[in-house]
């Protein structure tokens, strides 16, 4: 375990858990098959993990302070933590060898799992649930994979067979999910890249508009929601915003350095291009407003062999410069942690040292804070993938200097 007294111990634990991995004991896995925890058998983003495990793998881990930790269960970690279940207390425990680190919990099973739509589609193939976030996948293939132009660190949709998700199935799943009181604070829509259409991504844009428009009919006014999609032209972004009730948009740059972006994200480079991606991300601020446009990096992929930076200082410099540039322009730039995956082009290779992630987490948090930006749509509760936004939980004081949504009412 690392120790840095200036950072939340829960954020440090989260980073350690993602870095080292977590394996589940049989006892824990058995308890997680019970109806209160048992997750879906399908994974709407086609991320294949732990194929050797016969039992249903659980949702993400929640630490005692509700920090969210996503683990690729079942990967062959070299020095993992263990998650065990203590039948005496009825609690799950995180262990480091024989030493109890802390009590942990898992995201509870959402009530729509196990149900089917009117067309007979299992709802768990359409949506995924976190503690407070409903994640919808509109297109379960990434067409970049077709010509080997997928992002090199990506393993999403490597195993899925279907592509387009039936839009009525999505609508019905959302309706069903919202019957569970207080379970969701945000609806998030994404999918694999689909560049088809009269102009690149036209079909994808229309699909996202149709889906969000139908979901919007359920709500009075705008509702906490996010579209994670490529960087579209400003007129398309405007159309998405005006024709639906969504509140935030997230075109993820993923690799901050231009040369590395071009190498590691060939599909994104070919269909949009690095400079255009950035320009369109800034343009989106004119539509959604400051602090409502997000982007993120897949932190660590910029250090992966064979193309990556040679030193973590160079990688940090590049990422901090990018984060600051986005912040200056009202865009919230976050980090998410790269976990090497056997189905990704980069394959399995060592992650950068934990210290890199700690410095990155602190740096991103400090930069955004200095610009008065708060990631309310991507915080510990609504997302949980970003250790740097987890740190914002002590930053309530942006009340006076916050550039975005002061007193925003959703």
């Amino acid at each position, binding site marked *: 375990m690392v120790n840095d007294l200036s950072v939340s111990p829960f954020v440090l634990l989260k980073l350690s858990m993602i870095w080292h991995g977590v394996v589940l004991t049989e006892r824990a896995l058995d308890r997680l098959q019970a109806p209160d925890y048992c997750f879906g058998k399908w994974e709407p983003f086609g991320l294949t993990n732990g194929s050797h495990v016969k039992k249903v793998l659980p949702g993400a881990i929640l630490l*005692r302070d509700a920090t969210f930790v996503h683990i690729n269960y079942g990967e062959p970690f070299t020095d993992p933590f263990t998650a065990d279940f203590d039948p005496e207390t009825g609690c799950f425990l995180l262990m480091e060898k024989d030493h109890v*680190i802390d009590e942990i919990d898992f995201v509870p099973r959402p009530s729509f799992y196990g149900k089917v739509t009117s067309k007979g589609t299992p709802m768990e193939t359409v949506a995924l649930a976190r503690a407070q976030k409903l994640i919808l996948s509109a297109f379960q293939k990434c067409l970049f994979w077709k010509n080997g132009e997928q992002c090199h660190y990506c393993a999403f949709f490597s195993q899925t067979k279907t592509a387009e998700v039936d839009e009525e199935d999505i609508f019905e799943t959302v309706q069903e999910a919202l019957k569970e009181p*207080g*379970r969701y604070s945000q609806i998030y829509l994404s999918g694999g890249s689909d560049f088809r259409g009269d102009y690149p991504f036209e079909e994808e844009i229309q699909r996202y508009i149709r889906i969000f428009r139908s979901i919007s009919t359920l709500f009075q006014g705008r509702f906490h929601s996010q579209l994670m999609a490529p960087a579209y032209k400003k007129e398309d972004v405007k159309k998405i915003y005006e024709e639906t009730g969504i509140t935030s948009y997230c075109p993820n740059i993923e690799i901050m350095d231009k040369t590395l972006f071009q190498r590691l994200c060939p599909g994104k480079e070919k269909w949009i291009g690095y400079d255009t991606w950035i320009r369109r991300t800034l343009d989106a601020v004119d539509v959604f407003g400051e602090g409502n446009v997000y982007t993120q990096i897949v932190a660590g992929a910029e250090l992966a062999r064979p193309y990556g930076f040679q030193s973590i200082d160079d990688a940090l410099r590049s990422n901090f410069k990018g984060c600051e540039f986005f912040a200056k322009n009202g865009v919230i730039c976050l980090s998410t942690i790269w976990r090497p995956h056997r189905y990704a082009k980069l394959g399995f290779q060592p992650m950068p040292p934990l210290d890199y992630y700690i410095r990155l987490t602190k740096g991103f948090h400090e930069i955004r804070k200095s610009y008065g930006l708060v990631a309310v749509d991507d915080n510990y509760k609504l997302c949980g993938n970003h250790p740097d936004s987890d740190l914002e939980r002590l930053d309530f004081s942006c009340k006076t200097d916050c550039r975005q949504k002061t007193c925003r009412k959703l």
Partner: protein
Amino acid sequence: MQNRLQAENLPEAIEKLLQNQECLSYLVFVSGDCFQVREIYSPDSKRILYGLQREYSRLGRSLVDAIWFHHPAKLLLVCGQELFWSEVDVYKCHIAGPLFTDNLLRIRKKNPGGDIASSWEFRTGEWKKANRTSFQKETANAMSETEGSFLEEVHLDRKLRDTTHPVFR
């Protein structure tokens, strides 16, 4: 795991005070900040739950500080001239699951439009009786639960178009 307070049975008198609508509850943090809190109860005669209305608030920050850095707080229950207090271990933040739902539904039963951002589980130590004046300074300057908040948080099922919920049948 650091030494923490265990979830022990609450004294009967304290349970009664928690149920008494006329009693006032206060949370005092190591910073000296004191808040008058409303939605506080015990779901199982052991643990105490508090439904926080707004995450982005001074109270939200105090709770996070207490759980992150293991800073003990104090819970005061004031009924007339009587005051009981205990040290509090801010043990867990629930944003989903049975305890969160129990807390939320309890609030919505009283006020159908009600909501909470998160439910905080406290473990208490030995309860002590004191004169109300012993905490006069803290309670006199107690802040409201939503002090400094800048974002109203509402769950999506509270944003639905009309009241034919569950989701328009």
